[in-house]
C-alpha cells in the first residue's frame, strides 16, 4: 500500500526526515519497500503485515507509530450523524455473518463540486484516479480510517435492504464486469426485493451503482464476518480493497465513524446534504480481557517495565488496562474492537510491548547449552557418499521434484507400464509441473542433454532426490550420471571411458567408505532395469536385497532423448537401504614376509566371465593364497585376454616348487571346469 508521508503526518507526528520516518515504520513492522518522490509528496510503498486489517489505512499505521513514539494519534474530522435504529422496512439482517450494517442518506445539492485536489492527494499518490465525489470520499475514508463504504443510488433500490445468503441460481452484475454472473449459493449478499445490490464486503453491483444523475445516495457502512468475505472474494475472483480489509477482520464499532467521515467530506467540500443514519445489527463488544503477568512478560521480552509503564504503552495501541496496584503483579487488559481478530493471548500483548519498546532495544541472550549433538547416521552416510563422489569429480545438482506429462512419452511408458501412473498435480500453473516424478532418469538425461548441447560432454553429476508414488508415498534415492572420461580430460592422460565398469568402481568405493557389504550382481526385478543396456548393467545388492542399479543407459532411451554419439551411464541407490550399521573395524597385522606373485592369462570367449575363471582358480587355491587380481584386459577379435595375478603369502618360507605346484593345481582346475573353451595364453 502506498502512503503519503505528508498525509501520515496529519494522523500522528512522524520523524522529520524521510530516512527516520522510514526507519520508524520498519521498526513497527510496516516495511517500506521503496520511497517515491511524487507531485503530492513523499510516498512510502509499504508491505503490510498479512493478518492486520487495521493496518490498511493511515490511521492504523499511525497508531502503530504512536505505539512506538508516544506521540498523539489524530482521528480525521467527521460529521455528527443523526442515528436511528433501522426497522425492517429499511434494513433486514438475515444472516449472523453481518455484524453491523448502517445506511446513511446523502442528498446531492444543486451545485455539487468534486473534492479538492489537496484532499484527494492520498488517493492520487496511491495512483487511484478520481471518479466522482461520493466514490472518492468513500475511497478516502477507507484510506484514512480503514472503513470501507459503498454508495447505492437510492432510487434504484426496491424495498428494504436485506443482508442474506445468496440462493441457488441467483445472479449479480458486479461493478467493472461485463455481465451478470451466477453467485455461488450461500454467499453473503446485500439485496433488495428484486436484485442483488452487492456482494457483502467485496463489491457493489452495476444496477444499484451511482451515476452522474444520482441525487439520493444510501451510503452503506458495515462490518462482516471475515471468513464470509474471504470465501466470496475468492469464489468470485474479486480482490478489492474492501475485501482485503474485511477478510482480515473489520472493526465492528467503525461503520458509523466511516459514514460520518464520508458525510463530512461530501457536505464540506461537495455541497451534499446529510440525512439520517440507520443502524442494524446486534453485535456487542465481547470485551475480551487478558491478564498480563508483569514479571513474566518482562522476563519474556527482556524489559524492566513497571506495571504503569506497561499499561501506558498498551493504551497507545487502544487497549484498556486496569492496574490493580503493586499487590497484584498482573494487569487486566481489555482488547479493543479493532484488535478482536488477532489478540487473544498474553503473548500477543508481549508482542505489542516489544513493538513499543523496540525489537532491538532489549538484550540478546543465549541460554546455556549442556551438550552439543552429533550428526545422525543418515547425515554421516550422506557426508561419506558426498566425499567419495566429490573426490571422483562429481557435482551435486538439484532437479525439480516434478515434470511435465511429456516425460511419459520420452521414457516410452505405455499405459500398462508400472511407471505410467504418477501423482498428478491438481492446480499447477506451469505445464512442466504436471506430474510428481516417479523416477529421476528423465531429469538426469535432460541434465546431460543440457550440457551436451553446450559442448560439455565430460560430466559427472549426482543428486539426493525423492520420487513419489500414486499412493502418495515417497522414497529418497541417490542418483548419479557420468559421461565422457573417468578423469580429466588432461593433455597427458586420456583416462578411460566413464562407463559401467567405472560406476562399479564407484560402488566399490562407497562400499569401503560406508563399510557396508554392497555387492554387484543381477539386476533382475529392478523397476528401472529396462532403461539400461542389457549387456552393460548390474544390480546393487545389500544383505541379499536389491538396493540399486547401474549401467549404461539403453540406446533406445538415448535415441528418445536425442542423445547421439554418447553413452552416458547412470546409477541409482535406495537411500533408506543404506541406513544400516557399518561393519565393525577390524585390523589385520600386515605380514613382514614378502608376497610371491604368479601371473596366468586366459583367452575368454563371450559368455565366460572373468569372475567365472577367477572363481575356478580360487576353488583349487592353497591356504596360502592371498588374493587373485585381474591386472589386464586385452580385447581380441573373438575373445578377451584376461591376466590374473595370483598372490601368495605365508608365514613360513615358500619354495618355488611349492608355489609352482599350487599355481599348476589352480590352472588344472580351470581346465577341468571349462575344457577347451578357455585357453591359457603365454
Amino acid at each position, binding site marked *: 500500500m502506498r502512503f503519503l508521508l505528508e498525509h501520515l503526518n496529519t494522523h500522528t507526528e512522524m520523524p522529520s526526515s*524521510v530516512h527516520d520516518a*522510514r526507519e520508524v515504520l520498519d*521498526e*513497527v*513492522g510496516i516495511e*517500506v*519497500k521503496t*520511497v517515491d518522490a511524487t507531485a503530492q509528496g513523499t510516498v512510502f510503498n509499504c508491505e503490510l*503485515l*498479512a*493478518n492486520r486489517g487495521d493496518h490498511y489505512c493511515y490511521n492504523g499505521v499511525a497508531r502503530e507509530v504512536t505505539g512506538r513514539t508516544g506521540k498523539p494519534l489524530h482521528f480525521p474530522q467527521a460529521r455528527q450523524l443523526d442515528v436511528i435504529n433501522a426497522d425492517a422496512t429499511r434494513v433486514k439482517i438475515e444472516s449472523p455473518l453481518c455484524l453491523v450494517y448502517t445506511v446513511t442518506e446523502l442528498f446531492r445539492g444543486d451545485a455539487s463540486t468534486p473534492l479538492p485536489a489537496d484532499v484527494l492527494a492520498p488517493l492520487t499518490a496511491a495512483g487511484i484516479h478520481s471518479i466522482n465525489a461520493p466514490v472518492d470520499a468513500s475511497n478516502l475514508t477507507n484510506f484514512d480510517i480503514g472503513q470501507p463504504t459503498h454508495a447505492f443510488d437510492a432510487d434504484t433500490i426496491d424495498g428494504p435492504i436485506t443482508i442474506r445468503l445468496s440462493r441457488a441460481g441467483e445472479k449479480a452484475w458486479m461493478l467493472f464486469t461485463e455481465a451478470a454472473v451466477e453467485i455461488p449459493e450461500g454467499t453473503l449478499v446485500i439485496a433488495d426485493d428484486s436484485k442483488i445490490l452487492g456482494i457483502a464486503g467485496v463489491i457493489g453491483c452495476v444496477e444499484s451503482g451511482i451515476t452522474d444523475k444520482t441525487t439520493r445516495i444510501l451510503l452503506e457502512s458495515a462490518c462482516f464476518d471475515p471468513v464470509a468475505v*474471504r470465501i466470496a472474494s475468492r469464489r468470485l475472483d474479486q480482490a478489492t480493497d474492501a475485501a482485503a480489509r474485511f477478510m482480515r477482520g473489520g472493526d465492528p464499532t467503525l461503520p458509523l465513524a466511516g459514514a460520518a467521515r464520508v458525510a463530512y467530506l461530501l457536505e464540506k467540500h461537495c455541497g451534499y446534504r446529510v440525512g439520517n443514519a440507520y443502524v442494524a445489527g446486534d453485535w456487542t463488544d465481547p470485551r475480551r480481557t487478558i491478564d498480563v503477568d508483569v514479571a513474566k512478560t518482562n522476563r*519474556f*521480552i527482556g524489559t524492566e517495565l513497571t506495571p504503569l509503564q506497561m499499561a501506558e504503552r498498551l493504551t497507545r495501541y487502544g487497549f484498556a488496562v486496569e492496574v490493580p496496584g503493586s499487590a497484584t503483579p498482573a494487569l487486566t487488559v481489555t482488547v479493543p474492537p479493532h484488535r478482536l481478530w488477532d489478540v487473544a*493471548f498474553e*503473548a500477543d500483548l*508481549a*508482542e505489542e510491548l516489544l*513493538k513499543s519498546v523496540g*525489537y*532491538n532495544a*532489549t538484550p*540478546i*541472550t*543465549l*541460554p546455556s547449552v549442556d551438550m*552439543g*549433538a*552429533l*550428526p545422525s547416521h543418515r*547425515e554421516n552416510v550422506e557426508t561419506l557418499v558426498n566425499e567419495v*563422489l566429490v*573426490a*571422483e*569429480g*562429481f*557435482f*551435486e545438482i*538439484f*532437479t525439480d*521434484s*516434478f515434470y511435465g506429462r511429456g516425460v511419459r512419452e520420452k521414457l516410452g511408458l505405455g499405459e500398462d507400464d508400472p511407471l505410467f501412473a504418477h*501423482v498428478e498435480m*491438481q*492446480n*499447477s*500453473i*506451469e505445464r512442466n*509441473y504436471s506430474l*510428481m516424478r516417479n523416477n529421476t532418469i528423465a531429469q538426469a538425461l535432460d*541434465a546431460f542433454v543440457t*550440457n551436451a548441447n*553446450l559442448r*560439455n560432454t565430460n*560430466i559427472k*553429476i549426482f543428486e539426493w532426490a525423492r520420487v*513419489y508414488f500414486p499412493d*502418495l508415498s515417497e522414497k529418497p534415492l541417490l542418483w548419479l550420471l557420468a559421461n565422457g572420461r573417468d578423469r580429466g580430460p*588432461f*593433455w597427458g592422460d586420456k583416462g578411460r571411458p566413464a562407463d559401467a565398469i567405472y560406476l562399479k568402481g564407484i560402488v566399490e568405493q562407497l562400499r569401503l567408505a560406508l563399510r557396508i557389504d554392497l555387492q554387484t550382481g543381477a539386476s533382475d526385478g529392478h523397476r528401472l532395469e529396462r532403461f539400461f543396456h542389457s549387456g552393460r548393467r548390474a544390480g546393487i545388492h545389500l544383505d541379499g536385497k536389491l538396493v540399486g542399479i547401474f549401467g549404461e543407459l539403453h540406446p533406445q532411451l538415448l535415441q528418445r532423448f536425442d542423445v547421439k554419439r554418447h553413452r552416458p551411464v547412470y546409477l541409482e541407490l535406495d537411500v533408506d537401504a543404506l541406513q544400516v550399521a557399518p561393519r565393525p573395524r577390524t585390523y589385520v597385522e600386515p605380514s613382514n614376509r614378502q608376497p610371491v606373485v604368479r601371473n596366468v592369462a586366459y583367452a575368454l570367449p563371450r559368455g565366460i566371465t572373468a569372475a567365472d575363471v577367477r572363481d575356478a582358480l580360487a576353488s583349487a587355491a592353497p591356504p596360502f593364497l592371498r588374493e587373485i587380481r585381474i591386472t589386464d584386459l586385452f580385447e581380441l577379435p573373438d575373445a578377451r585376454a584376461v591376466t590374473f595375478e595370483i598372490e601368495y603369502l605365508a608365514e613360513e618360507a615358500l619354495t618355488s616348487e611349492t608355489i609352482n605346484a599350487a599355481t599348476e593345481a589352480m590352472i588344472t582346475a580351470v581346465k577341468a571346469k571349462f575344457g577347451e573353451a578357455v585357453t591359457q595364453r603365454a
Partner: protein
Amino acid sequence: MNNMSTHETLTRFRAELGAATTPEALQDLRTRYLGKKSYVKTALKSLGGMSAEERPKFAKEINYASQEIERALDAADEQVRGAAIAKQIETEWQDLTMPGIAQQRGATHPLTQVHRKAMDVMRRLGFHIEEGPDIETPYYNFDALNIPENHPARDMQDTFWLPNQHLLRSHTTTVQARTLEKHPPLPIKVVAAGRVYRNEAVDSTHLAMFHQFEGIWVEEGLTYGDLKGTLTEIAKSIYGDEHVFRFKPKYYPYTEPSVGMDMQCTVCHAKDDDCPACKGAGWITILGSGMIHPKVFIEFGYDHTKLSGIAFGIGTTRIAAQAAGLTALKPLYEQDLRVHQTIHRGGM
C-alpha cells in the same frame, strides 16, 4: 705400490685423483689406496717388524697418508656427486607452464554447503535433524500451525494441491508440527531442512521449488532474548562475524511475537538512500522467526503458560545464491554444469 715410499704414494694418488671424474673411478681409487691390499694397509702390517726407534715415526707417516687420502677422496666424492646432480637437473627440465594433472574434485551443491554450515552451529547448540515428507496433508501444513482454512495467511503461500486433499509442503514448518505431535522429551531442539514448494510463475526471484532450513527449540523459560541470541549465532556462522544485524516485527501465523531478522546492506551499509542493492532500505531480510504461538502449543497438547519455544526459518536458496555471488536464484537449480564449476572454483 708397496715398494714406493709414503711420499711417492701420496704424489701418485694426487695425480690419479685429478683424473678421476666419475663416482666409479673414485671408488676404484679408494679400493686401491685404502683397501686391504693397499700401500697403507700393507705398511701398517709391517710396523711389527720395525725397531722401536723407527716404528713411531713410520706409523705417524702412514697415518697421515691414510687420513690425507681419505679426506681427499671424500671431498672429490662430494664434488663429483654434486656435478652429476647438477647435470641431471639440467637434463630433466619440465615445462611447468603446462596445465597440472590431478583428478579434479567435484563439489556438493552450494545449498548443501549452506545447510552444513548452519548445521555446524546448530549441533553446537544441541539441535539434531528431523525429516518430513514433501507430500503433506493440509493439517500439518496449515491447520496445526494456526492457519485455518479461509485465513488470509493461506494466501501467503500458493499451494500445489495433489489428489485426496494432499499438498506439497509450502514450508518446512510441517516438520515442526510433526515433531511437536510426537511429544519428545524436553528440551526439543530440532532442525528441518529441505525442499519446499510454491505454485508460482518462475522468474529470476521466484521459484516453484526452493530450500528452507528451519528449527525449533522448546523448553521452559526460553525468552525473546534467547531467540535473538540463537539467531545471531546462526547468522554469524553463515555470514561471518563482521556483519550487522537487526530485528523487526513480522507476521507468521505460528509464532507470537513474530520476528524478522535483517542484515545491514553490505553494499551501502545503510548509508545510501539510492542504493541499488537494498533499494535504500539499508537492510536485507535474511530470516523469519518468532516465539512459538500459544495456539500451536495448544494444538499439540502442551501447556503454553509454562513452556515457550523458539522457531526460525531461513530461505537457504537466497543465502546460497548470495554466497555464490549469483544475482538470481534460478541458476542454482539449473543443470548447466558450467554454473556449478564456476561457483565451486570461484571463477578460478
